[in-house]
């Protein structure tokens, strides 16, 4: 049965909260902060989505999953918009999502530590970085970065020097 095209935006946000990120399914697209707007244009429901990383292959899948979810809920006229500005930042990942990431074994992003083109220089000069990422398994702060890049564009590879487990860190942009 089609849902009326007057379904309140709050209801639509709740539906979108059921759409998981395809690569990190413990968090939803709304928790990641990539759904930027829900509104009506005439009787068309418009959902504005912003990409995380510009080349992230999950972007197209996310769009498809959002559209599928809204159709499953009975919405018929749906349009997705790509919103680039302001660019997505990990600061928008909600507190609940950060807790879920940790439970899932991914160290959540630490706000204000995004690369600015100069960070590597500071790290080279001092021989260390002031970034302390706690191990999501044992909680130890005695960890080190293995690589700035990890299994997906949004993650870096780290390892814990206490429990010796490797882990992903949700890096900041």
């Amino acid at each position, binding site marked *: 049965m089609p849902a009326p095209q007057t379904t309140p935006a709050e209801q639509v946000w709740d539906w979108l909260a059921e759409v998981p990120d395809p690569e990190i399914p413990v968090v939803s697209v709304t928790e990641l902060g990539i759904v930027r*707007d829900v*509104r009506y*244009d005439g009787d068309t429901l418009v959902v*504005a989505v912003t*990409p995380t*990383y*510009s*080349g*992230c*292959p999950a972007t197209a899948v996310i769009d498809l999953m959002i559209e599928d979810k809204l159709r499953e809920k009975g919405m018929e006229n749906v349009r997705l*918009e*790509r*919103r*680039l*500005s*302001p*660019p997505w*930042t990990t600061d928008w990942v909600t507190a609940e999502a950060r807790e879920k990431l940790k439970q899932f074994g991914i160290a959540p992003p630490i706000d204000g530590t*995004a*690369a*600015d*083109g*100069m*960070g*590597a*220089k500071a*790290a*080279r000069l001092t021989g260390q970085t002031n970034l302390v990422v706690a191990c999501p398994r044992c909680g130890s702060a005695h960890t080190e970065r*293995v*690589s*700035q*890049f*990890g*299994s997906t*564009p949004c993650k870096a*590879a780290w390892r814990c020097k206490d429990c010796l487990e490797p882990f992903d860190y949700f890096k900041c*942009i």
Partner: protein
Amino acid sequence: MSDQIAASGAPQDPFVSDAALKPAFFEWLCRMGDNALVLGHRTSEWCGHGPVLEEDIALANTALDLIGHTQMWLGLAGEVEDEGRDADKLAYLRDAFKFRNVLLVELPKGDMAVTVMREFLFDAYHHLLLSWLAENSNSPRVAEIAAKALKEVSYHLERASDLVVRLGDGTPESHRRMQDALDLLWPYTGEMFEGDALDTAVAEAGIAPQPEDLKADWEASVQEILDEATLKAPETAGFFHKGGKQGRHTEHLGYILAEMQFLQRAYPGASW
């Protein structure tokens, strides 16, 4: 905010439909997109061949970011041109002489030293250019793409600078390879800072800076890293290779396109 959003989800931008500016703006967007596309393709050639797993993943991630930037720049180029070509059509169905990338990015990937040094020399320029565009461009569409890309290019530059220092000031073998790479690539860097009439038209509209205006900052930031890396840029007496921005390429570009475009040429419109 919301009243600035056009139906497409992008901000209103009078330059996108400015008929007088169209030829120059389109070409300039192709230069932006083609630099990202060709460097992204070269970088992706390491996928599965990196010297260590972490580098392999880093290079694949970097390539992916660059392909993402390509989609944004060439997508906008297609809108400005308004002849029904999207980013895919521009990437897969233009011949070499229609490509507008600088020669630096099309040179073969070489060894890791060439790959790292090229990325560094280009990233230092790319970071400056995108910073300018994100802050100053009169075109809201250009500014928002630049702001998005800048976040990623910032960590590209950090990674490349770090590797240039570690390998340049590393073992005798890594130092020698990095110096050889710098000697090879340096004569290709001048093209990034040489403007032509198209650059002037776009600069006069306040969309982009004059390429020359970025040169002093680029030289200063590059010199600082090269000093730290104990590397020395060769003397070229002002000579540099150029022509890519106007479509005059080295023989290497054709081989890239042969590989990149084969599928769409042989099976037009194929998708999955």
